[in-house]
């Protein structure tokens, strides 16, 4: 049976962070309730998908943990009625420190959620404040401990480098503090100042390029010391604890996104649900009316995506799988680009795979851009 991943978008949070450009914002309980109802309607209205097997589910946001535990359980229950779940399906929810309690964690466990991703970002109060986060490091420690007590044995901690005013030292300290808690997984992203966010209009004291590069390489070294391997540009995990849902994106496993503004890749089609809440609430019983930006991917698009997404993984692009999918070898299509970047020491090619070197990762966009094809 074909694998299928599910993404559930919860567009609510307690307070919007200053760097955040995701579809999310604070809302009252009634709005959250109306949305949850609509989301359940969307799921119930989907054509039954029994020909695929659900291997992962991911509740993202926003802050999915702002919903009462029962509601999340209801959503998951509905999904299970609609789809066939693998016995070992990875079911993750994002959570913000301070938004979980014993009861909610218990409900989550019972409903089948088996992985929590905590948006912690930093262990320093000033950095958290500057980001506009609502929690402290102590709040995080408490939530983390509660999750462990409740039996969660697969936890991710999200951290952020390249913050305004951040020093190499404080970043290293945050890494150590997080790793000492022995989570199974650590995501370490560098901050991007996105247009339209409050950060974009602020005069930020961002670390310079060399410092940022140093932060990046120290991340790998420090986390390696605790047993974490970097399996993707910004993701680190203990052996066997890589996030399967995330890897699915990079190897182009089909996924269905449910909820406001959620994207899907199904067959050779990519589409995104409407980002207009009113419209979503009105039409969620007709999922086909929600779909926007419908893109029919051609072979060329699929090849390009396979390359630039696959390059995010440390293991790189599986050459055999590529050939099996597209009927041509990577080299047949990309020989000049491969050679150019192998010569520059930014790419490496082995019998099995093509992947970015450490230097290549630092300038990954420049390299990835060259894998876009003029024609095919």
């Amino acid at each position, binding site marked *: 049976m074909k694998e299928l991943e599910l993404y559930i978008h919860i567009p609510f949070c307690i307070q919007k962070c200053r760097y955040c450009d995701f579809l999310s914002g604070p809302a009252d309980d009634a709005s959250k309730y109306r949305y949850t109802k609509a989301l359940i309607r969307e799921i119930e209205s989907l054509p039954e998908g029994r020909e695929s097997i659900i291997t992962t589910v991911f509740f993202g946001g926003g802050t999915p943990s702002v919903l009462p535990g029962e509601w999340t359980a209801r959503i998951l229950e509905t999904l299970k009625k609609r789809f066939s779940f693998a016995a070992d399906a990875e079911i993750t929810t994002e959570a913000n420190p301070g938004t979980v309690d014993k009861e909610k964690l218990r409900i989550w466990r019972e409903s089948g959620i088996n992985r929590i991703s905590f948006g912690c970002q930093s262990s320093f109060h000033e950095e958290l404040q500057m980001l506009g986060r609502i929690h402290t490091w102590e709040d995080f420690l408490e939530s983390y401990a509660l999750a462990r007590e409740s039996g969660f044995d697969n936890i991710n901690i999200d951290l952020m480098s390249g913050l305004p005013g951040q020093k190499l030292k404080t970043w290293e300290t945050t890494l150590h503090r997080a790793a000492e808690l022995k989570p199974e997984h650590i995501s370490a992203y560098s901050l991007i100042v996105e247009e339209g966010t409050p950060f974009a209009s602020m005069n930020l004291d961002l670390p310079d390029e060399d410092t940022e590069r140093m932060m990046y390489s120290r991340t790998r070294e420090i986390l390696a010391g605790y047993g974490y391997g970097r399996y993707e540009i910004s993701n680190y995990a203990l052996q066997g604890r890589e996030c399967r849902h995330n890897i699915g994106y990079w190897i182009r496993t089909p996924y269905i*996104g449910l909820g406001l503004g959620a994207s899907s890749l199904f067959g050779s089609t990519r589409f*995104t649900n409407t980002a207009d809440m009113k419209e979503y609430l009105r039409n969620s019983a007709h999922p086909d009316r929600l779909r926007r930006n419908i893109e029919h991917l051609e072979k060329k698009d699929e090849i390009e995506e396979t390359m630039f997404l696959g390059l995010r993984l440390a293991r790189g692009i599986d050459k055999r799988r590529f050939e099996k999918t597209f009927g041509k070898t990577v080299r047949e299509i990309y020989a000049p680009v491969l050679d150019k970047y192998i010569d520059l020491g930014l790419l490496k090619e082995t019998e099995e795979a093509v992947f970015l070197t450490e230097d290549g990762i630092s300038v990954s966009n420049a390299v990835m851009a060259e894998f876009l094809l003029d024609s095919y």
Partner: protein
Amino acid sequence: MATINQKNIRNFCIIAHIDHGKSTLADRIIQQTGLLTEREMQAQVLDNMDLERERGITIKAQTVRTVYRAKDGEEYIFNLIDTPGHVDFNYEVSRSLAACDGAILVVDAAQGIEAQTLANVYLALDHDLDVLPVINKIDLPSAEPERVISEIEDVIGIEAQDAPQISAKTGLNVDQVLEQIVERIPSPVGDPKAPLKALIFDSIYDAYKGVIVFCRLREGTVKKGTRIRMMATGAVEEVVEVGYFGAGQFIPCDELSAGMVGYITASIKTISDTRVGDTITDADHPCDEPLPGYKKVNPMVYYGLYPADRAKYQDLRDAPHQLQLNDASLFYEPETSVALGFGFRCGFLGLLHLEIIQERLEREYGLDLITTAPSVIYKVHKTNGEIIDLTNPTNLPDPSEIDYMEEPMVKAEIMVTTEFIGQIMDLCQERRGQYQGMEYMETTRALLKYHLPLNEIIYDFFDALKSRSRGYASFDYEMLGYERSDLVKLDILVNKEEVDALSFIVFAGSAYERGRKMCEKLKEEIPRQLFEIPIQAAVGSKIIARETVRAMRKDVLAKCYGGDISRKKKLLEKQKEGKKRMRQVGNVEIPQKAFMSVLKLDDK
């Protein structure tokens, strides 16, 4: 059309400095003589080349015939020949003037006389034209008509007490101008029975009619069927149609005779047969000698023009030919550059001419262009006695074969308010100017005279002049001849590879300074790439300046959700698209802008 009495014809032009309101007054005259309604004004007269309107300049001579009922009750035919208003087109201006019997001199009531005003007035007086001064823009708060009147009288030496004080914009007192045209501009003379003698003052190419020749008949008559001969080029053709100029259209008539201004078509295929300034005569009954003053205009400034996207060469290929149909002064020939691929070396009358052609290519042909460093024509005297006209620095012979080199000089006149004299003299000094003298126009303004090497003014002299005088200086020049000079070729090396399109000839004494500035500028323009890029300036094998573009060390490692994949792809596409607009030289991508940066090096 009934026979026209010569005494009821007025052939005149309007001369002015840029922005003093020449075209506005022309429009007003056309409108007030009732040729067009207000609505047609919008649709027709003003609907010239976009470029002309945007820049507020006239590129091609515009000619229009209109009929004015004067206060004496008679109807007069006005042939208004609107001349190009820029020094680059000086020769065209002189030919247009030669087609007139009088000139209206428009002077801005706030700004007074400018360098170009003077140049044009002298040109008009050289042609024995009666000059009718008009003070424009008197509705401006800063207008000082009295001062300007005395300036005209003092500086130019023509009577200006009766000059109409007008606002071409609002139409105020334009009627006075019309009456004065009748009263003060002489009617043409000439014998309609004499052998044909007509001056070509412009020509355009029309896809249907072929070349349309604009001419002023001095003697004789021309009509359909007349076999005409261009006396300088020797081309002979039979006339297909004659006519006069409506507003934006050609109106055929039976014949044109002495004193009249009109057009001739004769299925002439190429505009180079109908050179501005040439004399048309009757091939069967020729006149004894051509009108004086014909000369073939030669380009003064040469550039390489290349498509920004190498693949677009085919599109560029036909364009200069099309433009040349309408512009005999444009020169072009195919050229190849290592850095830029296939393109053209084009010759222009001057910087404005270049900019106009470049903009027209970009707009009318949708081409994105790269230009190389501009070059004048150097005379290279080789040790073997051979003399080469060098238009492309890349073709400079090996220094061991060069005896000496000469460069073209111009005689420049700069009008400036006295407070900026120091700054402008400094500028001329830096540009190797030889001071020739200074005349005070009045207590606040002076005319500076310099001899300057042409290659010092083709880059950014005009911009520098404006910026150092806060816009108050104006400038005019004419060719002077060649002078021996100590010149070297400055090469630019990017990542150790010479970029031929960036090479230029420079005065040896300025080589270091120019090389340094070039490197600095290129460092700003060339984006960081995946490796370090040295940028060097060299004279021969000697490196005289160096900058380094640091390697890109890190780009953003974006968080990327499943849903962001389209967005991520767009980002990568943008990045790739950006690369397309760059030229690959060796391993380095050089943006189009960098090639242009050599044009603007004055940093004061």
